[in-house]
């Protein structure tokens, strides 16, 4: 591949006015030309649906693709907490700059200033747009929008719809998309999976898809291609992602020359329901808000932990003095409210010492008994009860605050969290890394764009709560509709792209050959079993903490697993049929390569920052040590089977000062 010049293409000028000035001077496509231009949007979650509907509103002819039976099933739907916006409705000193600053700092200074500032700027418009679409956000009695606060910030800027914000925002975008589908401006292709990107004369001009109902391989052409295909957390097998979430569209593009940026940056969420057995398919998130009142602990002695693991003792049997409230001990200033990455690592340390509290030894307690007692006493005083049942009063308060979460916990685990402390463990939740894009959200392949979680651009090494929804919608509603014009304005003389071009035929042949190859292996092991083993390797060597030795070993193991996969995988059913196992196989095959790249990236980054913790690079107290001198860059990888090639985009911080985070 030719020499890369990784230019962010950000406009020059003052950070605060950059986006406004840029919009004013950008190339436009006239309405009569838009009518002749086709755009492919792959993925119809928050970013994809919002992009497809907005581009259609502008007059482009959009072809949208999802592997789901309907755009409404995208995993954006599962986001719980909320969406940030610098509205300053609470009059608490919020501003665009403050949201920008919080996001840069939260990302541990590994994201691009200009992109993040733009995100903060458009955040307010997202709320307006969603309200107009009929998203039923929470409101105050006065009828105005309510806000709550979220981890890592000092203002209340999170808009929410109970615990289902993602659902409501996605339904809003889905409805806008539906409106364009019925006008014919968007051609919706449900149950179609993108299996390859078609590049013609160096520009992205189409995709090859498989119709999941009948296995038909189809060619689709357009003037440009937009990827909004989400993150790759499923490489870990167990994650809070949906079962179908995959990296394939992005990875197929990487194999066609796009660059994968910061793949090792994954976010591990500390409060998930732990794994209960080998059959486990998925992990469920418990809201971060629980750490406001819950205290995290493990037994002080390994013997106690053992007897809990063997089921001889329960959490309540351990005396107060025999408990180690390790977050309060290690981080007295922040206690149980340390950021996600810190809390996750501390839980791993405790379990690695053998103090885990579930059958598998991989869980810590999240205990509400102190909160119940504290609230119970306060309630007794305020109600003036002389002979109070403190526990009962306290439980009522806790129920009012977290009732639905406790109910969900009980549904899944069958244990009553009011009586026994909850068991939690960290789980993979979000991937900050993704396809490398410039300021226009265009990848290094001209005409190929990436939005939302699929790109790497805004969250650096760690994402703040309630920012994923914001980024997805910002990219789809307010960024790509403008920036896509920079590319398309040069394409107005390009005729409709023909699917008869040799590049399409070649790509189609590649896809067909690949499927035939996978099917003809006819080995003995299920796709699922390979995925599970891959996930185990990833979690073990590229999970919450990494070291050079483990990463090298992990990489080797993945290569061996990949080799075994192509030797012994068994895919039942036919190629020309509805065949979920075949779908899984192509996705896992891609994960088997991405996993290796993540190891390579993590090994290259000799520092600890955000979600990436290298055991060799820590302070004496065991905290993350960033290396701003040598690693203030974006790692953009060019994939090849032998040794991926690193391209660097240096990050410049002109508007914020790089500081070390401390929670002691």
């Amino acid at each position, binding site marked *: 591949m030719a020499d890369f010049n990784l230019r962010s293409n950000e406009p020059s000028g003052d950070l605060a006015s950059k986006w406004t000035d840029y919009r004013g001077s950008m190339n436009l496509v006239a309405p009569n030309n838009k009518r002749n231009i086709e755009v492919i949007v792959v993925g119809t979650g928050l970013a994809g649906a919002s992009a497809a509907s907005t581009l259609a509103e502008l007059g482009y002819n959009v072809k949208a693709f999802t592997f789901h039976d309907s755009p*409404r099933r995208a995993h954006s739907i599962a986001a719980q907490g909320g969406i940030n916006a610098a509205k300053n409705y609470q009059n608490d000193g919020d501003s665009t700059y403050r949201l920008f600053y919080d996001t840069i700092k939260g990302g541990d200074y590994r994201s691009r200033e200009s992109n993040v500032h733009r995100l903060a700027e458009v955040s307010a418009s997202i709320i307006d747009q969603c309200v107009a679409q009929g998203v039923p956000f929470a409101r*105050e009695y006065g009828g105005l929008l309510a806000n709550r606060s979220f981890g890592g910030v000092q203002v209340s800027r999170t808009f929410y719809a109970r615990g289902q914000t993602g659902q409501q925002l996605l339904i809003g975008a889905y409805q806008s998309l539906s409106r364009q589908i019925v006008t014919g401006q968007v051609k919706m292709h449900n149950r179609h999976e993108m299996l390859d990107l078609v590049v013609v004369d160096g520009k992205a001009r189409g995709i090859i898809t498989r119709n999941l109902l009948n296995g038909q391989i189809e060619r689709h052409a357009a003037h440009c291609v937009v990827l909004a295909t989400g993150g790759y957390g499923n490489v870990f097998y167990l994650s809070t992602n949906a079962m179908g979430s995959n990296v394939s569209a992005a990875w197929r593009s990487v194999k066609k020359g796009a660059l994968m940026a910061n793949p090792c940056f994954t976010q591990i969420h500390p409060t998930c329901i732990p794994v209960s057995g080998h059959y486990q*398919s998925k992990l469920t998130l418990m809201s971060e808000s629980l750490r406001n009142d819950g205290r995290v602990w493990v037994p002080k002695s390994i013997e106690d932990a053992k007897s809990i693991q063997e089921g001889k003792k329960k959490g309540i049997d351990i005396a107060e003095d025999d408990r180690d409230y390790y977050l309060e001990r290690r981080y007295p200033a922040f206690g149980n409210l340390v950021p996600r990455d810190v809390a996750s690592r501390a839980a791993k340390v405790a379990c690695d010492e053998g103090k885990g509290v579930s059958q598998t030894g991989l869980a810590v307690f999240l205990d509400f008994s102190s909160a119940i007692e504290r609230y119970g006493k306060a309630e007794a005083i305020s109600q003036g009860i002389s002979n109070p049942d403190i526990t009962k009063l306290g439980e009522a308060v806790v129920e009012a605050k977290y009732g639905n979460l406790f109910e969900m916990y009980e549904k899944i685990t*069958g244990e009553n969290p009011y009586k026994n402390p909850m068991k939690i463990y960290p789980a993979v939740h979000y991937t900050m890394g993704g396809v490398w894009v410039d300021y226009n959200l265009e990848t290094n392949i001209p005409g190929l764009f990436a939005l939302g979680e699929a790109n790497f651009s805004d969250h650096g090494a760690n994402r703040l709560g309630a920012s994923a929804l914001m980024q997805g919608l910002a990219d789809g509603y307010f960024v790509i509709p403008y920036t896509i014009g920079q590319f398309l304005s040069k394409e107005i003389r390009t005729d409709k792209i023909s699917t008869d071009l040799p590049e399409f035929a070649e790509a189609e042949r590649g896809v067909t050959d690949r499927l035939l190859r996978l099917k003809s292996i006819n080995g003995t092991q299920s796709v699922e079993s390979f995925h599970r083993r891959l996930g185990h390797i990833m979690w073990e060597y590229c999970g919450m903490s990494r070291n050079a030795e483990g990463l090298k070993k992990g990489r080797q193991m993945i290569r061996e697993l990949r080799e075994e996969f192509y030797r012994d995988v068994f895919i*039942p059913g036919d190629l020309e049929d509805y065949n979920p196992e075949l779908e899984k196989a192509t996705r896992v095959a891609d994960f088997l390569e991405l996993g290796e790249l993540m190891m390579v990236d993590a090994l290259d980054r000799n520092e600890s920052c955000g979600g990436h913790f290298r055991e060799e690079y820590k302070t004496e107290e065991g905290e993350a040590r960033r290396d701003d001198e040598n690693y203030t860059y974006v790692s953009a990888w060019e994939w090849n089977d032998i040794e991926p090639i690193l391209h660097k985009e240096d990050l410049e911080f002109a508007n914020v000062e790089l500081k070390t985070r401390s929670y002691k």
Partner: protein
Amino acid sequence: MKLNLKIWRQKNSNDKGHYEAHSVEATGDMSFLEMMDVLNEQLINDKKEPVAFEHDCREGICGSCNMVINGQPHGPQSGTTTCQLHMRHFKDGDDIVIEPARAAAFPVIKDLVVDRSSFDDIIQAGGYISVNTGQAPDGNSIPIEKDMAMQAFDAATCIGCGACVAACPNGSAMLFTSAKVAHLGLLPQGKVEHTRRVQSMVATMDKEGFGMCSNIGACEAECPKGISIENIAMLNRSYIASVFGGQK
């Protein structure tokens, strides 16, 4: 625990379909879908075709996983989707019959997978507010009564799983359609297009081949999100008003 399953197998929409008996070993901590995973792993190891069923988020929100378990959409636990139903609600030796959602408007694609695209068609007929990106006024420019916003939210929690249609002896989609009409019609933003929306969505619902509501309430009882048939009454009311009060 050992479970005796009777599962509907159907190769494609043209196939007649039949029940197939399997037994599977499960534990109480497994979710229903994880039990199905175990079964499929068994089948694959025997070089047989696994049972096709739809699933994705496995946390009760995407709406993919509706299947009919012992005659109940999403199984016996109320307010719970199949993916969140756990095997501890069954006991050793139980017989479980698993069938696809049945309705003429939901043709079977394969085994337990049905085609629910008629729901998309209903939404496309008017289940939206016509506002282009960029046209919106400030989010706080229209105050909305808190209770009204909550009521709209309750209707908007529909996950489009089709349990209502599966539960209805008439295969009616009134709960689904009415939930969207109520969500948008209760909000001031959505009132502008209410009349047009109601007419168009009802016409599409009829065209898709869904049955008529006979006010039995099975939909409401089986809805994993607890959406009320009060919404159906609102749709009826709105429909009458749209016919007799509308200009067209």
